[in-house]
């Protein structure tokens, strides 16, 4: 591979601007205490991406430690099942630690070292970002604390064990809804007190500037590889690209390479949960409104006073009331369509992909798969639908068994 994996990520466009704005979205709504650290992070990041040694180090890690490039796989039996368009999967589930999250954590861990910090904190929902952070920290000898909502500690128990095995401390969060949103609150509070020695490795394209930019750029390797693989294998670009959206990092990484290809349809799939009622889903782009959460201006589920709303998803990684500001920008611009997918449809897709392809996908990813299966069925056979298979489902097996038991 001659082209660096990170450098091209910087080409993903003119956004954000110097204030961290994607159109009106983004920005930096944080306590003054954190501003200096965010400035430091931005400066360090901008110098890192210009540094050929930094890029070479990250590229080597992504190749030898993560196993990149991840394959592009033609899901033939799944495609035949629908009888329509071809479904191709970008296999981020085959990365080391089983999801796209590692692309970001290795990059940010390298930034941590550049900043001379020795301690890392992170939040996690599904536990995949926690595991990927614990992995990066073990790799570099950094100390690591992961905040995780108590409800997620329960439903994603295998990942909790894995984090601990790699030397991370997992702190269960018992405030609020005990899910991802509360874990981010706790991580931010830790950072308020520890900011001089600690870097906060945020796991998605959310939070204050520069996080949405940095995480997107580190994840942009997904889309860049997939685009090249499509051109090499199929001789053309896909007709549609589908990815699930929690905070939106795998989707942002995938979409960023295709944004300029106006003919490629881009679809982000949110957690539609149990129903369209507030509190029953976590589809902030589909049902929410612009507001401020976790340091950023973006679509959010909120009440009339601006209090963050309750959300639900059976997948811990999508169970979040906000979304990355760049997605809000893409939504308003009409460049990306955002669709909700119900809990039930995601479970059904999980089963179908397991049985027809021999792939256990993460429950988060199953939302994207459900939409892609539906879309493919309505399109002719010569069309190509590319799905970001963001992670594998080992972590979910026990929870799925429990849900099935409860349903019978």
């Amino acid at each position, binding site marked *: 591979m001659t082209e660096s994996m990170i450098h091209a990520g910087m080409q993903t466009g003119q956004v954000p601007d110097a*204030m961290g704005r994607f159109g009106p979205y983004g*920005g*930096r*709504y*944080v*306590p*003054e*205490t*954190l*501003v*200096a*650290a965010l400035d430091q992070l931005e400066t360090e990041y901008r110098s890192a991406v210009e540094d050929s040694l930094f890029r070479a180090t990250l590229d080597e890690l992504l190749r030898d430690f993560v196993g990149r490039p991840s394959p592009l796989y033609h899901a033939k039996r799944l495609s035949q099942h629908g009888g329509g368009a071809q479904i191709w999967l970008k296999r981020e589930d085959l990365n080391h630690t089983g999801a796209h999250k590692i692309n970001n954590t290795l990059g940010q861990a390298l930034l941590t070292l550049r900043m001379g910090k020795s301690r890392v904190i992170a939040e996690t929902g599904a536990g995949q970002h926690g595991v990927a952070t614990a992995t990066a920290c073990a790799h570099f000898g950094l100390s690591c604390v992961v905040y995780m909502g108590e409800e997620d500690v329960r439903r994603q128990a295998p990942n909790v064990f894995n984090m601990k095995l790699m030397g991370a401390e997992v702190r269960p969060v018992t*405030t*609020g809804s005990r899910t991802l*949103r509360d874990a981010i*609150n706790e991580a*931010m*509070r830790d950072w*308020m*007190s520890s*900011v*001089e020695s600690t870097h906060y490795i945020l796991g998605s394209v959310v939070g204050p500037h520069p996080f949405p930019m940095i995480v997107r750029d580190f994840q942009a390797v997904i889309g860049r590889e997939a685009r090249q693989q499509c051109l090499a294998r199929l001789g053309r670009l896909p007709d549609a690209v589908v990815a699930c959206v929690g905070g939106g990092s795998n989707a942002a990484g995938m979409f960023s390479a295709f944004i300029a290809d106006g003919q490629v349809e881009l679809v982000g799939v949110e957690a539609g949960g149990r129903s369209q009622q507030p509190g029953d889903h976590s589809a902030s782009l589909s049902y929410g409104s612009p*507001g*401020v*959460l*976790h*340091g950023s*201006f973006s679509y959010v589920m*909120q009440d*009339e*006073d*601006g*209090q*963050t709303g309750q959300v639900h998803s059976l997948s811990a990684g999508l169970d979040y009331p906000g979304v990355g500001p760049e997605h809000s920008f893409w939504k308003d611009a009409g460049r990306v369509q955002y669709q909700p997918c119900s809990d039930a449809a995601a479970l059904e897709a999980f089963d179908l992909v397991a049985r027809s392809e021999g792939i256990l996908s993460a429950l988060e990813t199953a939302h994207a798969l459900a939409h892609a299966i539906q879309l493919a069925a309505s399109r002719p056979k010569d069309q190509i639908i590319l799905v970001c298979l963001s992670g594998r489902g080992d972590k979910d097996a026990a929870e799925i068994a429990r849900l099935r038991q409860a349903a019978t």
Partner: protein
Amino acid sequence: MPFITAGDPDLDFTADVLKQLDACGCPLCELGIPYSDPIADGPVIQASYTRALERKTHLADIFEMTRRIAPTLAMPIVSMVSYAIVFRRGIASFVAEARAAGIAGAIVPDLPVEEAGPMAQICKQEDFGLIQLVAPTTPRERAIRIARSSTGFLYYVSVAGITGERTRLPADLAENVAWLRSRTSLPICIGFGISQPEHVRQLAPVADGLIVGSAIVRRIARADQEPRDRVLADVTDYVRGLLDALKS
């Protein structure tokens, strides 16, 4: 200068506490508008926000309460409010409603100076204070820029961290505030961590005001279980103790 949470345990009691704090001679009171995701707050204030929100304390109800109470008080009330709430209301509406409700200004802890432009402009037109914060992590040139855009007073955050009582405050706190004082004519008030008469004695010489939050909120929290007049008496004793330390 006390900080209390609006609506904990209910707005009637908040009104009683405000009257009492005024009677004690507090020069100003910060009124915390409960918010669902306060990342700058420690467990005590977080819990008070959660209680207030569980009781469905809405912004309109808080304004309704202050509209009744503020004219009877000698001390001004300043709101402590997340930008999430201000934005949702619309900046202009928030400022107009707050002002009509007898509130003198706002501290918006998640609105750093770069983002404060639109709100600062409206506050200026409406003669509504927008109090900005300087933290121990703020570089000095930046602190000067913040001081220039703050109105009413400047809030100096004593510790890098979240709100909550501390036994010890940073050794260089007085020195840092003294430096800032040499660069601005605005009054400087110090907050975060202050809870003991000893802190008050130590910081009084360098500050124009000292903000005490968690130590009072923790006492008010007991109004859920204990007779309210006893809680009120306890808060009064505690605040009088601090005010005495200020004079000594």
